[in-house]
């Protein structure tokens, strides 16, 4: 059944409220008086098409949803996120960033459906475990699932510099956006935009990698919540503790850490005293000088380990402590050498630049995919050229670049002239 003006106005009001916008702010956004917004929301004046599309872009909702028989702003993950995170709903920059990202993801999902690329997609695995009763259980769950995921994805025990690509291969859209410093990342999940992870591009590479793993954990466990913003101040929450535990174990598996330490001669498995039976009824004894720490780990070992796994020095320290490779006292002592560790890491980074370009690539990788998807949809005749141009523009592709691509697709069509079309 078609909706009327009153219902359309009411739905627009609900979307506005879910984004924490006042009528004055919407009026400013649309360049109209506040009284007009009041009239639109009460059904006394229709929103026009330009205003509707502007609102859809600013608030990151699909305008199609407004006209559905049954409308619920709750179905939309962006709304769910802001409802669950009242703090986020007051942050206009965050709203804009999320709205822009969800708009790109929606275009991606829509193109995927148009060209039939969604048919072969297997939805990412989901772990339906009981809600943890306390932080201890949360950490246990995170640890167990991290090990299981490592094994399921056949990732071995080494570092995961290509983690964003690994997550993408699981059908998750990943992106980087400049967010407030207090936010490390967020996830959104609904039918329109698919599963998506956003990480704060303002954070260091190491922190970003940790955030990717952290948000991936939320998608594995907390997808039904549709969206969560991960903030430092929430780290005591059980779901956050679980995601942090997952990230630490996923990025730095115990086996990998022990192999690494063994490789640099810092293995506890090397006994300080060895006795070798010599078949003559006696034994040859060999003794190794002990160190003040069981593993003798120095700041440069930890910095090297952190660099190897692409995580922060601090994160590596906590992981070593959780594996009981170092004690709390040792962790504290090593943490005080952060400055020296940073200097050492710089040396490593300069020598081994392999991690450097990864994140720059990631930033544009999603947009490249979006463009490829749109070109394919155009080639198959599922979207018009004009729509292709819009998608390309959203993916920051210039007209010149697009025209060069189109030249390769439209060679045949361009050679045929336009016939006369007059309505009979």
């Amino acid at each position, binding site marked *: 059944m078609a909706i009327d003006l009153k219902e*359309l106005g009411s739905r627009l009001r609900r979307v506005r409220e879910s984004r924490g916008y006042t009528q004055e702010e919407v009026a400013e956004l649309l360049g109209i008086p506040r009284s007009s917004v009041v009239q639109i929301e009460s059904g006394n004046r229709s929103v*026009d098409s330009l205003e509707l599309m502007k609102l859809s872009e600013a608030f990151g909702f699909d305008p199609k949803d407004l006209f559905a028989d049954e409308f619920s702003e709750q179905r939309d993950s962006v709304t769910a996120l802001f409802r669950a995170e009242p703090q986020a709903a007051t942050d206009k920059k965050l709203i804009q960033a999320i709205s822009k990202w969800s708009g790109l993801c929606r275009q991606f999902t829509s193109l995927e459906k148009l060209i039939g690329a969604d048919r072969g997609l297997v939805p990412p695995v989901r772990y339906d475990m009981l809600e943890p009763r306390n932080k201890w259980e949360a950490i246990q769950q995170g640890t167990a699932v991290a090990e299981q995921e490592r094994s399921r994805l056949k990732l071995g025990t080494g570092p995961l510099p290509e983690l964003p690509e690994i997550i993408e291969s699981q059908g998750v859209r990943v992106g980087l956006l400049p967010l407030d410093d207090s936010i490390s990342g967020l996830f959104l999940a609904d039918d329109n935009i698919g599963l998506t992870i956003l990480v704060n591009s303002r954070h260091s590479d190491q922190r970003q990698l940790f955030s990717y793993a952290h948000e991936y954990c939320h998608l594995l466990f907390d997808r039904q919540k549709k969206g969560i913003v991960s903030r430092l101040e929430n780290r005591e929450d059980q779901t956050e503790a679980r995601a942090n535990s997952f990230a630490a174990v996923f990025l730095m598996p115990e086996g990998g850490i022990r192999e690494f330490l063994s490789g640099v001669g810092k293995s506890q498995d090397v006994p300080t005293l060895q006795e070798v039976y010599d078949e003559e009824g006696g034994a040859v004894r060999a003794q190794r000088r002990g160190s003040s720490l069981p593993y003798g780990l120095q700041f440069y070992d930890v910095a090297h380990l952190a660099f190897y796994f692409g995580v922060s020095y601090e994160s590596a320290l906590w992981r070593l402590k959780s594996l009981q490779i170092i004690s709390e006292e040792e962790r504290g002592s090593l943490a005080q050498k952060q400055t020296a560790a940073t200097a050492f890491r710089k040396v490593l980074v300069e020598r081994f630049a392999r991690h450097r370009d990864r994140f720059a690539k990631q930033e544009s990788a999603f947009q490249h995919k979006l463009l490829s998807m749109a070109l394919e949809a155009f080639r198959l005749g599922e979207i018009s050229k004009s729509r292709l141009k819009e998608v390309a523009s959203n993916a920051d592709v210039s007209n010149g670049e697009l025209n060069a691509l189109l030249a390769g697709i439209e060679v045949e069509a361009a050679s045929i002239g336009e016939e*006369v079309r007059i309505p009979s």
Partner: protein
Amino acid sequence: MVDQSKLLDVCTDSCVLINFAHVSRLDLLGQMSDLVFHVPEEVINEISEPTQAKKLEAAIKDGTLHALKIVDVEELRLMAEYAAMFGKGESACLAVGVQRRWIIGTDETKDRRLSREIAARGIKVINTPGILLKSIRHGILSVEAADLIKAELETKKFKMSFNSFRELVE
């Protein structure tokens, strides 16, 4: 005296407007005795080249063309549906074409997606060559002048499938 009831409305997309703005002949669209050309706001926004945008603005101001604001709920719904597959201007033209049974003015009928939708919905279309031909038939434009426009548009890679309008009027 023009019989208003016999006037046909055309919802015009950007490609046609760009062509006529390029040859500085948007006035032709206002001289058709049987057609009234409307331009949705989305289409106006798509014309970004400053000189063309100014010509369009002037043509709307002097009444040659009529700016169109879409506010009807069903048209808004259609536009929202079309937005995933078509550009904003095309979506507006299609929504009006479907809902009001207006003619669409477009040169993108070789676009597979657009032509499929036009055929499925039974929408009538007029294009740049069609408008030029009608102008000749209405005595607004000579064949020679139309051919000059054709030649000028061809420099901008807009080709027509015939050599001269004379082939069509004789």
